[in-house]
């Protein structure tokens, strides 16, 4: 197997995540797109760890998983709170901090 295959797949996934954040207006899809980008980085970590036979990359994947779980907890709490105050999941309608 060639590492370039995994690099290309990871690039495609990351680009899809960026497109999702740029184009979609639904807060939940926003969140899923961020998770897609995290997973693309994870795939690259695993691929390079396999390439060099070094487990440090796998340890970093573990830490990324932890951060993703913490992010899910805080982010979803934020979304629920925003939804409670405005009854809307459209990110363009959240402008409380705009001043």
């Amino acid at each position: 197997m060639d590492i370039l295959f995994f690099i290309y797949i990871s690039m495609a996934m990351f680009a899809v995540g960026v497109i999702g954040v740029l184009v979609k207006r639904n807060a939940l899809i926003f969140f899923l797109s961020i998770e897609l980008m995290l997973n693309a980085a994870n795939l690259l970590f695993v691929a390079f760890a396999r390439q060099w036979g070094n487990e440090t990359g796998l340890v970093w994947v573990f830490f990324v998983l932890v951060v993703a779980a913490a992010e899910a907890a805080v982010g979803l709490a934020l979304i629920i709170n925003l939804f409670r105050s405005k009854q809307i999941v459209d990110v363009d309608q959240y402008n409380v901090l705009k001043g």
Partner: protein
Amino acid sequence: MFPFATIAQWILGIVLVLSSFGVILLEKPIHASLSFLLTLLMLAALYLQLSAQFIAVMQVLVYAGAILVIFMFVIVLFQDAYQQLSKFQPRSYKPFLIFAAIAFTGSLIFLGYQLRAHPPAQRALPTGYGTVESLGEALYLDFFFPFEAVIFVFLIALIGAVYIGRKAK
């Protein structure tokens, strides 16, 4: 010369990219999250192909088992919000957004083309690579301080989630 990728890896990779497109292209959030679940499972299979068994198991347990379940709960909570979603039009100009996305993708492809010129060498794997034993050894011997610091990250995230998510008086 080893092949670029085996047939199984091609299938897994193509399904992975297609299902990640499904996350942003499908209209209903429940369908998008199911597509994301497919993405996660394909990723776990690719991790197995890269001989990282423990990470593959953690991927399914943490992502598909924990994060996506919380996510589904939130989607069920928001169920009646989707009917009103379609009447809000995005304020940003869509051509600009699409142009930014295309420019980003193009720069990534350029980067990949540059990488093509210098393929790194493949090394032999040490025995027990990717198992719980060797990964646990790395975590508890070489990365002990970050591992302990992660506990504080979790604790603070937990407190923050409870504080943010509580009902305002």
